[in-house]
């Protein structure tokens, strides 16, 4: 069993590590510093931390002003508010002038759980993908989170990095050699491919292992960088003829559509999207919600089996 580790803690620890080296790193939060864990940075560098209060729009505008003055700004709150409440500020004040504001949005997806729909961001990737100049990252474990926080610091321009509330199984060893723009192929196979991000990568891997036991070889890609999406990896997946995408997000506009766009234009094949299907979820533990809304290893397994059968029947 893989060790489980918090992405939010990895984020905060990396902020402190970077903050020690770089005077120009500033952190903003919108009254959720305990939850996003930026409080750890605040405790270490109080003079470089600003709590903007419950005003996400103001936080994004302030972040833009700081970035225009040469600061690298990490701005954190829950994903729903970072993307939804402050969308236009992110678009016009940050992305249009390409300012170095790194939005690290925690509590993405319905895995937020008991707080319910008001706090579950299942549309954030879709609305952020539509904005030019921003890179969208959904790390799948703590190691990858650390890598991308470093990457965001050193890469000019806006980032949207979406973290989960639950701690996640560690997939990558500490020294894993990430390429920021490439999907990570976690398993190879010739019969089909699963492309997943974030909290859904680990169950995707488990589903592929189960299929392997039945003699079905499935590639698994961790598509942590959703924008720009790794087109080469998508084409490699499409060449198997069967692609299942998997995300804790609406099936509209998220990873599934980012992958689908590439498949449609570069290598058409059958694709099936696992995610929240155009509906709101509800309060509940993540364990219960993932069963009810179809975000489990079992669901991915079935989706791939069904896709393989469907394609065989049609051809």
């Amino acid at each position, binding site marked *: 069993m893989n060790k489980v580790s918090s992405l939010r803690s990895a984020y905060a620890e990396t902020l402190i590590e970077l903050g020690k080296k770089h005077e120009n790193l500033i952190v903003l939060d919108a009254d959720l510093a305990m939850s996003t864990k930026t409080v750890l940075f605040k405790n270490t560098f109080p003079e470089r931390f600003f709590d903007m*209060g419950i*005003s996400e729009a103001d936080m*994004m505008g302030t972040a*833009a*002003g700081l970035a*225009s003055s040469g*600061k690298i700004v990490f701005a954190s709150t829950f994903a729903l508010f970072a993307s939804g409440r402050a969308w236009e*500020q992110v678009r*016009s004040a940050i992305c249009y002038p390409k300012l170095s504001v790194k939005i690290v949005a925690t509590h993405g997806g319905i895995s937020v759980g008991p707080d319910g729909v008001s706090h579950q961001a299942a549309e954030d990737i879709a609305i952020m993908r539509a904005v030019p100049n921003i890179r969208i990252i959904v790390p799948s474990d703590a190691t990858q989170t650390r890598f991308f926080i470093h990457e965001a610091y050193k890469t000019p321009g806006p980032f949207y990095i979406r973290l989960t509330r639950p701690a996640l199984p560690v997939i990558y060893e500490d020294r894993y050699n990430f390429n920021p723009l490439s999907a990570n192929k976690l398993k190879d196979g010739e019969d089909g491919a699963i492309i997943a991000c974030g909290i859904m990568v680990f169950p995707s891997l488990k589903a592929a292992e189960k299929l392997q036991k039945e003699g079905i070889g499935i590639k698994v890609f961790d598509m942590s960088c959703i924008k720009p999406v790794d087109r080469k990896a998508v084409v490699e997946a499409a060449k198997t003829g069967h692609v299942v995408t998997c995300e804790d997000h609406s099936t509209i506009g998220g990873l599934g559509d980012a992958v689908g766009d590439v498949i449609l234009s570069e290598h058409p094949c059958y694709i099936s999207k696992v995610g929240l299907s155009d509906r709101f979820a509800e309060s509940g533990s993540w364990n219960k919600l993932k069963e009810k809304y179809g975000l489990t290893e079992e669901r991915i397994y079935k989706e791939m089996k069904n896709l393989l059968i469907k394609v065989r029947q049609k051809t």
Partner: protein
Amino acid sequence: MDNDELKETARLVRGDVIEMLARAGSGHPGGSLSAVEIIVTLYYKVMHHNPHNPHDDNRDRFILSKGHAAPTLYSILSRLGYFDRTHLWSLRKCGSLLQGHPYTFDTPGIDASTGSLGQGLSFANGCALSAKLDKRSYRIYCVIGDGETNEGQIWEAAMTSARYRLDNLCTVLDFNELQIDGRIQDIKNPLPFREKWEAFGWNVFEIDGHSFEELNQALEQAKEIKGRPSIIIAHTVKGKGVSFMEGKPEWHGTPPTREEADIALRELGFVDGVTL
């Protein structure tokens, strides 16, 4: 620059604004004309800036939160040498250096991309926080509209400025009493301004926004106020300088026709039109 020279500059800027808008065929005369003396005073009397080095780290920053007054800012920037005057006549046209609302990437001298109302004061706070962190002495100036205070983000930002004691920030409120749909009192009624800004922890000046003496005095006095941000409530006339535009909300976002522009220019003393 003495008072007469400032007045002449304001007249020339108004001429540019009318000519730009007539040529563009769209844009915002009313709020551009009301803000002329405010922005002229800032650029010609108060702010430290360098047209030959628009990105000078120590320059004072200017954020035109009411971005629709861009023509006034563009005219002033071109007159100061930030870019060639000929660009003024391509305002709002495809491929132009001058976007309909200010954009940092395209236009030399623009410190903040604005236009969507309510956002500039937050940006100004970010600049002011940065200056404080770096212990630099440059100041941040932000011009907001009166209708713009309908936006909740203005008040979020107003709390931030006071909370972080941003005395290096001075906001000017262009109080021309009108917004697109009518008198500000009849739309959402953001009044009273003085009491609101004082309650939010700001130092408040209230002046005639077309008086260079009063603008200069308030902007200089604001530099001496420590521990809190200052706002200058500048009483202005929308469409100032063109008789048929003054006090008329319908001139908020309607450009003059060529004929109307020529009448306006004659009123402003440009008998043969503006010098292109």
